[in-house]
């Protein structure tokens, strides 16, 4: 049957639906309707049967009625004219004595997505709100939201909103939750439903009547409630305490989020909350359902951002299981990496080591990278494991290990000698370009510690014609030049051959340019090459930046129990930026940028000027120190400039920072008299203190500059900078 054309099927079904014999027989009729729905859900277009289906809907058989309504909801938007015919039946059903029929009809009618329907459904919906059956009220409340969406951007009906707010006191818990949802949609443009004190307290009292879906949703609405006093915060925490240990993950998570946000001002309470939620969260992370387990792990990682050792005692719970899908294993490995401490490092490394030989290439490589991350703290132990893995002589493992080494020597220079011993022999087992790049970089950078480094690189140079990746070739040129500097005798010939090949025969322009660049550089003499090529060989300070310090709980608590922890903050921002609202953000930032950057020539001028005064980019002075100096020093110069508008603190700060003048304190916009204090230091160590002052009524700004060691010319230059900044600001804002 599915192979015949859809038209045939529609024709055949229509014949059956119109057949009086079928219409008379309830069961046969229902079967035909069932077949229509079956084709519909398989993706066949059966909208042509709308007329017949409307007729079939006028029946006493409630199953058939439901099926027909399902059909109508799907196709109403396609056949608005015919759908109007169905409205009468539906409106009649809305007054049926059976509440189930009333609710069903109301819900279906509101789900017709076609223009002009709202005038027909308005009255039934309003009647439904006052129905005595809660089933009907539930449908009616959401019907209000549907109506609002259908009407688009027309005005919000205040009466309906008030009614819905009143219905928050409805005895049926689902009606109450539906009211919140409906209000949220209707008032979308005004910031959603308002949770004031009486409503919040009412919701708190009703919590126990709700099922766990309702509970988690109400908890999410309560996040919006702004508590007034400390007592109130603790009352709420007490009332909801039991929900933190609920057996439903969604309630646990929603409660945690609410608690963390409520106790934002009490860090010790937050720590206590995280401690108490540990058990339930671990239960989610070891849940039988892989999907829940994954979500739990993502959220556990958020908590680790603030308290890295949070689950250290339970590290065994994060060991991977044989049957788990890879996406869970990745999360667990990342968590294990965070949990490492002196006591468990041995066990965790042993565990990670067993993943390194996993049959899944990605998993094995991920395990190796994670061992590499642990190596930043426990380098000895990890290097033993990593070097052992090289013995397996497998391409994907060797490549991952070498990439790990590449990162490691950059961050932990003390490992270099150890790593260099392991490098010879690896070149035979590396095929992918990332691995090759890492190996070539290591050989170039630390070639003096690897006895046969020139000969390994020579092999790469000999096979450079076969190399497809441009990145590898470029890395090879750089590495050869570096190695040439430390071991000229062994490398001269090879480097010559490489440069010849690259310049004469290479087709990739980027590679060729790189070759020419080094060729010309080499012509400048060896000292010049050394100055350019030999940068620092490691940067341990980078580790401090990448290995994150403990973040505040507030950095992630707002995104808790949403999709953000699953994607990660950055990726989520990128995702949401792709959507429409990104335009606003972009425009916003563009406007901001314009405020300061309208005149490029002036900006250049400013920076050039500041160059002559040579202000330090990162000077530091605490407000107390500033105040002390300010009172000690005499005003060196006082000037006034034209200024006739409100001051925008942000713009002023950004503008001054641009010329390396730092802000100490500033009044809020609109305050009279408006003041700002700034300072700057130059290379020779002289210090400038500045006060900006505008007084109400006067159309100018008074600039007072104080200087620590007086130098007339410097002072004049400096004042010129300050004036130009303020003038630029004034013009652009006008």
């Amino acid at each position, binding site marked *: 049957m599915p192979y015949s054309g859809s038209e045939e099927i529609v024709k055949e079904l229509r014949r059956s639906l119109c057949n009086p014999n079928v219409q008379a027989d309830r069961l046969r009729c229902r079967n035909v309707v069932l077949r229509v*729905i079956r084709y519909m*859900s398989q*993706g066949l277009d059966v909208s042509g049967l709308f007329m017949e289906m409307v007729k079939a809907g006028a029946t006493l058989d*409630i*199953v058939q009625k*439901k*099926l027909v309504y*399902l059909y109508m909801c799907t196709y109403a*938007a396609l056949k608005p004219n015919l759908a109007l015919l169905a409205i009468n039946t539906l409106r009649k059903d809305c007054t049926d004595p059976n509440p189930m029929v009333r609710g069903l009809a109301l*819900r279906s009618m509101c*789900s017709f997505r076609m223009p002009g329907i709202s005038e027909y459904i308005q009255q039934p919906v309003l009647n439904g709100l006052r129905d005595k059956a809660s089933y009907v009220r539930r*449908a009616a409340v*959401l019907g209000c939201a*549907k109506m609002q969406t259908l009407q688009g951007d027309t005005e919000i009906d205040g009466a309906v909103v008030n009614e819905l707010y009143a219905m928050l006191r409805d005895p049926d818990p689902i009606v109450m939750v*539906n009211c919140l*949802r409906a209000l949220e949609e209707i008032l979308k443009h005004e910031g959603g439903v308002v949770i004031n004190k009486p409503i919040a307290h009412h919701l708190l009292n009703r919590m126990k009547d709700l*099922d766990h879906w309702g509970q*988690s949703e109400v908890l*999410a609405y309560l996040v919006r409630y702004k508590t007034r006093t400390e007592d109130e915060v603790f009352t709420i925490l007490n009332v909801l305490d039991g929900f933190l240990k*609920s*057996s439903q993950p*969604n309630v646990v998570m*929603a409660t945690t989020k609410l608690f963390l946000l409520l106790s934002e001002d009490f860090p010790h309470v937050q720590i206590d909350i995280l401690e108490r939620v540990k*058990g*339930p969260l*671990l*239960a989610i992370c*070891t849940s039988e*359902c892989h*999907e*829940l387990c994954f*979500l739990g792990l993502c959220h556990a990682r958020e908590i680790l951002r603030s308290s890295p050792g949070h689950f250290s005692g339970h590290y*065994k*719970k994060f*060991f991977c*299981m*044989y*049957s*788990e*899908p*890879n*996406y869970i294993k990745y999360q667990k490995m990342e968590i294990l990496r965070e949990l490492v401490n002196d006591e468990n490092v041995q*066990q965790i490394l*042993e565990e990670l080591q*067993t993943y390194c030989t996993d*049959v899944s290439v990605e998993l094995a490589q991920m395990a190796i990278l994670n061992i590499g991350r642990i190596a930043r703290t426990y380098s000895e132990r990890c290097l033993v494991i990593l070097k*052992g*893995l090289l*013995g*397996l*002589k*497998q391409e994907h493992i060797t490549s991952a290990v070498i990439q790990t080494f590449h990162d490691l020597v950059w961050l932990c220079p003390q490992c270099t000698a150890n790593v260099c011993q392991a490098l010879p022999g690896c070149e035979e087992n590396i095929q992918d370009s990332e691995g090759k790049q890492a190996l070539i970089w290591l050989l170039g950078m630390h070639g003096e510690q690897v006895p046969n480094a020139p000969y390994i690189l020579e092999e790469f140079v000999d096979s450079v014609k076969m190399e497809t990746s441009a990145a590898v070739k470029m890395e090879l040129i750089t590495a050869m030049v570096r190695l040439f500097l430390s071991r000229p005798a062994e490398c001269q010939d090879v480097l010559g051959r490489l440069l010849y090949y690259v310049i004469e025969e290479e087709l990739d322009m980027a590679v060729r340019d790189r070759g020419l660049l080094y060729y010309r550089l080499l012509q400048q003499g060896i000292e010049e090459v050394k100055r350019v090529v030999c940068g620092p060989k490691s940067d341990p300070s980078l580790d401090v930046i990448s290995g994150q310090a403990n973040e505040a709980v507030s950095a992630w608590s707002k995104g808790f*129990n*949403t*999709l953000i922890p*699953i*994607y990660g903050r950055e990726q989520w921002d990128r*995702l*949401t930026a*792709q959507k429409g609202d990104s335009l606003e953000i972009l425009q916003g930032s563009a406007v901001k940028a314009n405020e300061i950057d309208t005149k490029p020539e002036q900006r250049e001028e400013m920076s050039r000027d500041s160059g002559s005064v040579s202000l330090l980019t990162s000077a530091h002075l605490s407000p107390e120190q500033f105040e002390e100096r300010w009172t000690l020093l005499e005003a060196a110069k006082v000037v006034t400039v034209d200024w006739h508008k409100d001051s925008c603190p942000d713009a002023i700060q950004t503008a001054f920072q641009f010329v390396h003048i730092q802000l100490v304190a500033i009044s809020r916009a609109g305050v009279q008299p408006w003041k700002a204090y700034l300072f700057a230091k130059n290379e020779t160590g002289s210090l400038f203190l500045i006060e900006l002052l505008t007084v109400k009524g006067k159309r100018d700004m008074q600039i007072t500059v104080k200087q620590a060691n007086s130098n007339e010319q410097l002072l004049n230059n400096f004042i010129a900078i300050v004036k130009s900044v303020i003038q630029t600001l004034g013009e652009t804002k006008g």
Partner: protein
Amino acid sequence: MISQLFIVSARGDHLIYKDLRGEESKDVVDIFYQKVRSLPRDQAPVVMHHQGLQFIHIRQDTLYLVATTRCNVSPFTVVQFLVRLVSLIKDHCGTLNEKTLQLNFALVYELLDEMLDYGYIQTTSSDILKNFIQTVPETSKQFNLFELSNIGLFGADTQQSKVAPSIAASRPVFAMRTEEGLKTEIFVDVIERLTVVIGANGSLMRADVQGEVRMKCFLPSSTEIRMGLNEEFSIGKADIRGYAAAVKVDECSFHQSVNLDEFESDRILRVVPPQGELTVMQYSLSDDLPVSLPFRLFPTVDKDTDSNRLMVYLKLRCDLSPKSQALNVTVHLPVPKGTTSLSQELSSPDQRAELDSVTRSVHWTIPRFHGGSQLSALFKLEVPGLSASSLLELGPVCMQFELPMSTCSGLQVRFLRVSSTHPPLPHRWVRYVTHSDSYVIRL
């Protein structure tokens, strides 16, 4: 809020599709399917996105249940809802697979219609839903040998009838509306999942038990059930009661409908279960198990570099009590890459061993393993280019098995009383089973 909800089979067939808010087109089903297909099996992350539309899915055997949304929703709520949907479909149709969905799609639509309105979850309680669901489930009855064996010779009651019929698990709960004469039954399953890591030196590195007490109820609603657990059951580090071997669990949580009034004093749970499946309680314990581990492995590995041959001799001992047994035991032994062939010597003909080149491992299957016995196997592996480090690739050994009628925690249901006023006393079944979640032995 959920924008659309659909169920796709692993082959890409659209089984169920419900557009709840009319915001998206139906094409997203195919977009989702392409996304899943582009990844290796089992690897599709729970949350995926396409042009700002989020797909949240769970996988149930060969089916994908997917919800889409554009809001930054609570992922827990959505996943739990999908999980609940699965169990409700199972309650109503008996099982959940492609076949039952095709037979009962009208019922599923009806369910969805009552559960979700405009993308908001209304109710998922089976007690409420059963009043609204009118469609009668259709079950595909299969010929089942197990059922035949239950009848016994000449209709006589045999020993086997004391075993809970496994067919009950796939029977719709709400069939009673039509078939009045159906048995009233209640099943209580104590299911434990065992996670163990044994180190290379035979020391126990990790042992975790995740347990739950599940109830499948075919009784009329509002029947109260009293279930007694071991009297010496204790939670956390609380004091041990009595002198008998204590049953200790670290964490324990109960379903919100469980009445715990008598729990503190007598360890009795009082439940008024809705029809269908209900997880009464979940518990976990870790590290010190009251019983010894079910399996011990004693491996010997010989390496012959000259002939490139690796000899692995595995001695496996089952430390269960002699009365019980383990079923469907599978031992996975990862072998070095490039292993070309396997020859084996097994101790009995019903065992099998084969080399799986995809997972690069030897699978040794033992259908039945009696407590207190010991089995051994010798695997000769041909590994061209065998080197010292190849041994690193051998292991860790993973085991999968099922231990019927035993629990690792020692939790037992002492009694199960049904406060039924109707004369035919319902059949009550209590079953215990321990599954291996992950049983890893390092070499």
